[in-house]
């Protein structure tokens, strides 16, 4: 297979224009001169920071281990091929319930996993920012929800979120920039079930265009969202923040794998060692921002241990890599007489956050939402084979009924647990770096939530006339929590501004700073935190507090 799309593309004063086939954008280059900020990772955390800091006048180099795509010409309508968007470097998974990595929780592209995310853009329930004080579990965030509400608004505007005019849950929010998409049949089944059970539902606020914006086309409902959007309707970091960052003078380095953060004798970060174009290089920087998500971020910090910081950089609390949280992704499925053909449209066009906002009637802590589903063939076959143990003739027959299958899937809050963690294995990867070991086990709280949620979703399906319902108990999605933010240096890795307690010019900004993960998809919250961090950096810089 000819894979020309594996090349370095950001070079020679230009970077690809992700919205134009064969197109280029002018790009400023800094060489290996010291820059104000080097950002490691260009996903939901790194990309907004690159744009906002460059716009504030800082010199910025943003590195990503993955390639820089032009989706219109690089993306095939094909699940297998598009696994090129996932992080497929070696990783070990263990624990009582080792987690499946790849599609649901990783990305290796400029734009990170937002290049293939399901685009669900929900705000946290305000109380979930103070779950310890208000609800008696987890940990409080050091950020007030009202401040987050403003940053959510900013991100929703940048991503042109399509959403319902009135949202049934939580404090009043401003109108979404674009109108909600029509429901597909799978979403209609969620809505009917919710109405039958007497709970609220809504069109999912979603980061794909329902009207043309700039060079981007509106969504064509092709249904391959989680394998990458070749329409560019999906408002990934690649098509939103990254072009903005380039225009503001940031440099993006694609296919640049950062292996180690260098620190000087004073304990401050001096730059990063990175592998690009077949060799190791060093980029000097006045500050380093790590935005590699919940596995690569702790991996990099742990791998950057020094004689002074032997347990890893910024790890005096011992919490780097700890409190890894997944989100529960259990489902209920059933068969209906109707042709549902859930391969059409974004997979999650309808949502209910009922159980994020209601605390009564639970024998566990935490919230969850659930959404309609639209699995593509490979995913569906793996779901049936893994979830129901089907293979052979049974699997083939079941697959041939796929157009009549309908399902609901949860995004559920797992609680922080120090035993769930990322460490370094002894084995090394293609760069000679020690690979991460991801240890995960469920607690009783998660099992109780799964039981309740799958029963509820199954009831919803049954209320719409679905037969042969079954519960998929295995899946997880999203990660968080391996470099948590908090109120003091002994119980957290970074402060509310995402600045590490131990190394004042080291910042961490991605899902790993989440003290709790809530019952909603994290991308909107990560981007909101990134915008807040950018504002805080600008403010501190003005006060001379950097």
């Amino acid at each position, binding site marked *: 297979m000819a894979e020309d799309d594996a090349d370095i593309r950001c070079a020679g004063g230009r970077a690809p224009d992700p919205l134009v086939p064969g197109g280029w954008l002018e790009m400023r280059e800094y060489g290996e001169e010291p820059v104000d900020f080097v950002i490691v990772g260009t996903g939901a955390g790194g990309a907004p920071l690159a744009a906002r800091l460059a716009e504030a006048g800082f010199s910025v180099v943003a590195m990503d281990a993955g390639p820089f795509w032009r989706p219109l010409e690089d993306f095939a309508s094909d699940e297998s091929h598009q696994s090129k968007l996932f992080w497929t470097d070696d990783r070990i998974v263990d624990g009582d319930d080792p987690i499946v990595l790849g599609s649901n929780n990783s990305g290796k592209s400029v734009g990170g996993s937002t290049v293939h995310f399901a685009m669900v853009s929900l705000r946290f329930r305000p109380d979930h920012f103070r779950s310890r004080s208000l609800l008696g579990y987890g940990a409080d965030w050091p950020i007030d929800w009202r401040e987050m509400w403003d940053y959510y608004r900013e991100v929703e505007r940048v991503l042109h979120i399509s959403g319902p005019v009135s949202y049934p849950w939580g404090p009043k929010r401003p109108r979404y920039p674009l109108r909600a998409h029509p429901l597909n049949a799978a979403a209609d089944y969620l809505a009917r079930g919710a109405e039958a059970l007497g709970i609220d539902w809504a069109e999912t606020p979603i980061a794909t265009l329902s009207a043309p914006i700039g060079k981007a086309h509106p969504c064509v409902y092709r249904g391959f969202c989680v394998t990458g959007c070749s*329409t560019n309707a999906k408002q990934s970091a690649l098509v939103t923040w990254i072009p903005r960052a380039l225009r503001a003078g940031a440099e993006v380095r694609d296919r640049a794998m950062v292996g180690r953060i260098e620190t000087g004798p004073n304990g401050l970060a001096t730059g990063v060692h990175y592998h690009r174009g077949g060799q190791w290089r060093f980029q000097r920087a006045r500050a380093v921002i790590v935005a590699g998500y919940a596995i690569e971020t702790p991996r990099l910090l742990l791998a950057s241990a020094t004689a002074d910081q032997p347990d890893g950089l910024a790890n005096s609390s011992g919490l780097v890599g700890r409190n890894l949280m997944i989100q529960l992704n259990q489902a209920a499925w059933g068969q209906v007489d109707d042709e549902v053909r859930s391969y059409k449209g974004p997979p999650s066009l309808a949502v209910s956050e009922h159980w994020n906002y209601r605390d009564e009637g639970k024998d566990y802590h935490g919230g969850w939402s659930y959404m309609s589903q639209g699995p593509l063939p*490979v995913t569906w076959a793996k779901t049936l084979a893994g979830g129901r143990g089907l293979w*052979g003739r049974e699997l083939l027959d079941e697959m041939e009924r796929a157009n009549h299958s309908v399902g609901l899937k949860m995004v559920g809050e797992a609680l922080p647990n120090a035993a769930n963690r990322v460490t370094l294995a002894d084995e090394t990867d293609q760069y000679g770096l020690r690979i991460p070991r991801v240890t995960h086990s469920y607690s009783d709280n998660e099992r109780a939530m799964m039981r309740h949620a799958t029963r509820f979703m199954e009831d919803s399906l049954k209320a719409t006339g679905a037969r042969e319902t079954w519960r998929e108990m295995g899946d997880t999605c999203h990660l968080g929590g391996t470099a948590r933010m908090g109120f003091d240096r002994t119980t957290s890795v970074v402060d509310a501004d995402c600045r590490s307690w131990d190394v004042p010019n080291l910042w961490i900004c991605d899902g790993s700073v989440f003290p709790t993960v809530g019952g909603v998809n994290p991308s909107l919250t990560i981007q909101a935190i990134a915008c807040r961090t950018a504002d805080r950096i600008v403010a501190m810089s003005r006060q001379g507090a950097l």
Partner: protein
Amino acid sequence: MADRYAHYDVLDKRDTPSWNDKTRQVIDARMSLREADAGIGEARLATLRRLVSRIAPQPERHAPANTVALLAHKIVKDEGEGFRPATLPRLRECWLRGLDAIEAEAQARHGRAFAGLDAERADALLRGIEAGETQASDWIALPARDFWNWRVIPDIVSMHWSHPSLWSAMGFGGPASPRGYVRLDVNRRDPWEAEEHGDG
């Protein structure tokens, strides 16, 4: 089961706006892969063929998928998803050892090659691996259930349902770019989607 989509072939859409150049390139390359070119050796290939035929049978009314070739190439190229449980080696080594273990299991149980077992015996043997109830000593270093859950099932199923014949058989719309879909409601379909025919 009667094939509900016997008259539908997703490949008929290859030259319509449902497929872009990149998709044509990727699917053409996939469908042209041959078993023999992979180079995993004839004995292992025979075991793999029998294994794939039991796990992922071919659709009745559509062209057979080259699943064995796809998987054999994946194995040789060691094209994993990266993550793996601590109990298993990397994809290539895992599969080669796993195929040998399946063969050893057939020899231990029936004194003959796995490729030569009838359907009933082959399936019983596979159910043993699925349940972790095995006889061959190969499984000591390669936990049978892990091999089954993390390699056999996901890899075979992924390769099989990456083939257009399987998409046709299930009435899946197939590639869809630049053209997606217009009619999203229950029981509605676009003219370029598969029409379902009732059983019988």
